[in-house]
């Protein structure tokens, strides 16, 4: 698939999203669709660092919540509009990403993962103690009248379709560029990559920053979506687990893996929430993840590739 073809598919997906928005089906479809699409953004963003570069980030909630709380701050301080919130949420989270990029100088493997997890805990503690953005009791957003669309649910759904398409297109472009090849080399062997001329530090900083940016972007519209944000929901452990599980299920080496993983697992979770119980989510993720790690360690895309080669 050439770049122009991918762009066309992207535009088509956004068109489909708009059509679905115009259709006016059961509001729950938009509500659940938003969550699934949000996970497409999160899983794809996580995978730029975790899949392409091989640095497993357990701190997804930190980046997501930073996006959400940047929005809250800007709403409180400036009544900033949604596009500004998304861009700012992304940029602030990108800065945090750059910071963890420098951690990779000293921390590799599981130690890097532990550090990112700790980062999430530290940041949550800071937010809990920051009254301006609601502190421990949370922040309630009163949404203004919805522009252009029938409801906020439809608007946010359409927005997430667009964000997901942009994120996936960016990830795909990177994967197929010299940057993607350099990241794959440093994932396989960082010393060898550096000795073969790959500027490993610069590429890692790029990956952590970009990954952070899109994780922040995913979190920025969150206050509009839930209208009530508290630290425990923005820093939910689910984001850390899903961000890792979805690419693992789909396959981490290509852009398609996280998309497939997010759609499958995200949808399964939504269905389980409605039909059985919302507590069942993590159990589903856990069981599926164990199955995949044992039976198909390269995820669904890896499994298909292996079957085709036979």
């Amino acid at each position: 698939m050439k770049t122009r073809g991918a762009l066309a598919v992207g535009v088509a997906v956004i068109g489909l999203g708009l059509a679905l928005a115009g259709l006016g089906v059961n509001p729950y479809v938009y509500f659940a669709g938003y969550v699934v699409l949000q996970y497409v953004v999160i899983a794809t963003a996580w995978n730029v660092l975790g899949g392409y570069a091989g640095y497993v980030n357990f701190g997804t909630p930190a980046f997501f919540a930073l996006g959400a709380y940047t929005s809250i701050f800007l709403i409180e301080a400036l009544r900033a509009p949604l596009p500004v919130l998304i861009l700012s949420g992304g940029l602030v989270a990108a800065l945090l990403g750059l910071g963890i990029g420098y951690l990779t100088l000293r921390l590799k493997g599981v130690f890097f993962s532990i550090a990112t997890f700790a980062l999430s805990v530290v940041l949550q503690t800071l937010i809990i103690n920051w009254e301006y953005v609601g502190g421990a009791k949370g922040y309630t957003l009163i949404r203004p009248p919805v522009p252009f669309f029938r409801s906020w649910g439809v608007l946010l759904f359409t927005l997430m379709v667009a964000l997901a398409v942009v994120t996936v297109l960016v990830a795909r472009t990177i994967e197929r560029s010299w940057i993607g090849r350099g990241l794959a080399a440093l994932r396989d062997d960082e010393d060898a990559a550096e000795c073969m001329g790959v500027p490993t530090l610069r590429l890692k900083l790029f990956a952590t920053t970009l990954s952070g940016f899109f994780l922040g972007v995913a979190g920025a519209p969150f206050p509009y979506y839930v209208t009530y944000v508290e630290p425990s929901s923005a820093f939910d452990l689910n984001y850390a687990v899903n961000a890792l599980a979805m690419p693992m299920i789909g396959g981490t080496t290509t852009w398609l893996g996280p998309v497939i993983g997010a759609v499958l697992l995200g949808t399964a979770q939504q269905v389980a929430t409605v039909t059985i119980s919302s507590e069942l989510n993590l159990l589903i993720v856990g069981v599926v993840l164990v199955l995949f790690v044992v039976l198909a360690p390269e995820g669904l895309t890896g499994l298909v590739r292996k079957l085709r080669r036979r």
Partner: protein
Amino acid sequence: MADPLLEIDSITKRFGGFLALDRVSLRIRAGERLGLIGPNGSGKTTLINCVSGALPTDAGRILFEGRDVTRLPAHRRTRLGIVRSFQIPKPFASMTVLENLGIPLEYAGLARAHGAGAMEILTMIGLDAKAHLRPSGLTQIEMRKLELARAMAARPKLLISDEAMAGLSSAEVDDILAILFRLNEQGITIIMIEHIMRAVMRFSERVVVLDAGNRIAEGTPAEIVRNPAVERAYLGE
């Protein structure tokens, strides 16, 4: 010696209280074949880690083609033409043999336009039949050859071969030696670090001996074999 390609000017490297390199100096002329030997722990690998940029030095300077590279990160040195192979092969496991060569070609080799393409290098080294295999499907000697082929793809001016022959059979050693001789004929300067004396002595024009972080001897292979200090370093008093 006029205009050395590489000039190591009294570099020192400490690991905590352990002095791994004690003001070691070394000059290598373009096109030379230099053997670097010494007992285990003598500082050979530390020295080449300092030259390739994997380790920072504590004192001293490293000049390459007259340019001070002491503070440059490893990938910049590779781009200038200092390329090393690893003692334990470190292939890019998710890529095919051919793609393994693509990384140095793209990131380092293309800076110097003239040189062989990836497939030509594989043919020269005798890996062309395995171009589309993953490294996990290679034998031990093929892995060593891949290590050399990948280093070649960076189009080195100076190739540092770190024990490329350890654990190979005598016929395989000859095979690798032949490759290194051919590379040298193409104008590549080679530093060979090796424990297999037969190989080093046959290959090198000049041999430098390290012991406990000091340079204890230097000379032609014939001189080194007769050197009492070298004998002491290897066998004790």
